[in-house]
């Protein structure tokens, strides 16, 4: 007996499904995804920021692996290999531009994602650990930025890393040892590239993958946070959409738009634009005088500027040390907000923590602005 083509297709599809289902119980997963819903409201746009950050991270992984094919760490080879990548390797310039652009955009969207979570109090019970893992991910992302900046071994990267690691050296008790560990010696040398390279392509990705998996599992287990106002709404007024496929399709659409923007930026501004730029420039020369303007990446600018504005001494403590102490305390409070904000635990708005959020946001914006304008 002849079999219709559609029937054949359906049969083979169900065969594959059955084969997998018997081994991995995928029906349960499909059922779970089928039941999962996402709240629909005025602030639904915020639900996409985390997804965009994830997409940009995937771009980072793919482009990073491609760069790894040609990059050779070392004081005598790092700069030359990056130059080879951007000038000789087919589409090497594009891969480097995509890697740099998506790195910057990933940090930007991670910040946006964090602030939207903060201001919607989405960190409240039961998402305290999701928030904590997110803060950890942001810290790792900043670590990626810091360690990746040195790898081209050009003049700016060299001096910025010297300043950056020098700040770590100002930390009391462990500072001196930390500086030696980070630099692989007293000074920024080829040994530092080796460490930063290991950090950038092995240690940080390993930690990031674990923490990201945890973060995503948490989000999947808990679903999207509903707005505070919804607790007073009757069930009939709460709107939802299916996660699969409705929300996933929307997520994919946003990713496609992000990909288009990324491609546009990478092609039109392969070396970045304005204060966000990464020209290869001249090779690092430890014996050359530092360039007139040493600036960190834009996402470190607020901290850099704040430390610069501090007086040499604050209450018998060295200014820079005082700043680092203040940032550490501020960072700890920020990470522990879900546990400190008692009102949010009982689904209430907390004016105090709103105000704290605005102060932090204003501080970052003003200091960043001053960092670029007050030269």
């Amino acid at each position, binding site marked *: 007996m002849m079999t219709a083509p559609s029937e054949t297709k359906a049969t083979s599809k169900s065969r594959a499904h059955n084969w997998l289902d018997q081994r991995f119980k995928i029906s349960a997963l499909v059922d779970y995804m089928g039941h999962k819903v996402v709240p629909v409201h005025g602030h639904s746009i915020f639900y996409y920021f985390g997804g965009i950050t994830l997409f940009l991270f995937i771009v980072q992984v793919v482009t990073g692996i491609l760069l790894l094919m040609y990059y050779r760490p070392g004081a005598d080879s790092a700069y030359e290999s990056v*130059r080879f990548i*951007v*000038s000789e390797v087919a589409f090497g*310039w*594009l891969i480097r531009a995509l890697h740099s652009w998506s790195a910057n955009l990933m940090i930007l969207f991670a910040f946006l994602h964090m602030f939207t979570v903060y201001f919607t109090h989405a960190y409240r019970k039961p998402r305290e650990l999701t928030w904590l893992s997110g803060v950890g991910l942001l810290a790792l992302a900043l670590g990626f930025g810091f360690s990746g900046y040195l790898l081209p071994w050009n003049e700016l990267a060299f001096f910025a890393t010297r300043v950056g690691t020098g700040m770590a050296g100002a930390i009391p008790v462990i500072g001196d040892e930390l500086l030696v560990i980070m630099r692989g010696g007293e000074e920024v040398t080829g040994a530092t590239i080796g460490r930063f390279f290991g950090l950038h392509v092995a240690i940080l990705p390993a930690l990031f993958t674990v923490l990201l998996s945890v973060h995503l599992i948490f989000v999947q287990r808990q679903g999207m946070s509903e707005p505070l106002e919804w607790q007073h709404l009757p069930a009939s007024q709460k709107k939802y959409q299916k996660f699969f*496929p*409705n929300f996933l*399709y*929307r997520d*994919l*659409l946003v990713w*496609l*738009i992000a*990909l*288009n923007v990324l*491609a*546009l930026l990478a*092609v*039109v*501004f*392969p*070396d970045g634009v304005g204060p966000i730029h990464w020209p*290869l420039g001249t090779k690092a020369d430890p014996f050359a005088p530092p360039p007139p303007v040493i600036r960190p990446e834009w996402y470190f600018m607020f901290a850099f500027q704040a430390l610069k504005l501090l007086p040499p001494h604050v209450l018998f403590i060295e200014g820079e040390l005082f700043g680092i102490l203040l940032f550490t305390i501020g960072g700890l409070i920020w990470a522990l907000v879900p546990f400190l904000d008692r009102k949010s635990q009982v689904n209430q708005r907390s004016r105090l923590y709103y105000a704290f959020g605005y102060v932090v946001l204003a501080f970052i914006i003003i200091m960043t602005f001053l960092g670029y304008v007050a030269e």
Partner: protein
Amino acid sequence: MIAFAAEDNCLTCHKDIEDEDGPAHLITRDIHFQNGLGCADCHGGDPSLDDMDDVRKSAGYRGVPNHLQVPDFCARCHSNASYMRNHNPSLPTDQLDKYKTSVHGKRLFENRDTKVANCVSCHAVHQIGDGKLPHSSTHPVNVPATCGKCHADPAYMVEYNIPTTQLDDYLQSVHGKALIERNDLGAPACNDCHSNHGAAPPGHESLAAVCGNCHVFQMELFDRSPHKTAFAENDFPMCETCHSNHRIEKPHDAMVGTSGGAVCADCHSADDGTRAFVVADTMSTGLYKLVSARDQAKTVLDDAIAKGMLTTDVELMLGEVDQALIKARTAVHAFGTAEFKGKADTGIAKADTVLARSKALIDNYFFRRKGLALATLFITIVAVCLYLRIRKLG
């Protein structure tokens, strides 16, 4: 050392009787005083005595030298090699000997002309500065004004029958602008060509050696050129014939050739029996071609840079074209085509390569744009399909 100066009774009394511009006040700015020498070290006498009459009678008192005596007065120490070795071993001790060979020295000693410069005319009195220090009258930047004090003063120079326009000319020259306006201490001041203590105008025969001190390659080429003998036979001053002396303008390509402002045509004509016109035309055309090739390549390269292309290697190659242009301009001084053509042709070939590579970069730029447009179009189509699907799902 300062303690020694403070015990100097000459200073104690003279400071009281002199105004602010008096020697006792000026001396504190003097390099000799700053190195521990007191008044008596030059003027003699016993500085520990209180009474001036006693000082005059004391052993070794020399008093104030007159204009004629000054060179020997200074030379007591400055021509004494063993004495100078203990104080400033790097300073030569032949200044007096050189001075005697100078126009100034000859007139002073032979004609007893007290209007000519002696040591203090240039170095000042009682506030003699180290020539390395910017406030010193013998610091390179101040030398033109120091010489110009007399040589740019028509009333003072009237009896010598020499021009007084040298300072003005020099200030407008390529050397003067470099030294005075740009503070480039590598540029020559008056003493670099005329010598300092042995100051004299360089003769026609030594002019190439004077200019060749810095412009080594030009001098070597000139010495091998047909001009060397021709200039000597006709008593033409070597470099000065084309470049003038004090008002030396920045050399430009139009100086080479047979028309317009070309200096070759000052002496040569098309039918003078030499190949001069052919050589001048070849060099002029070669320079013109090289400069236009270089400018065209640079314009296209700048466009590639503005478009954000990676141009480091091509920029380095443009630097080689600039080097070739400098070499070709130098080779002009061989006044033959063989030396010149090699340099110019190399430069033109390199400029053509820069042009071709810059054009390729610009083509690549547009290729990238087209690729981007295609990729964007494809992604957009997929996005639109997805959007329609989302709409359908509701």
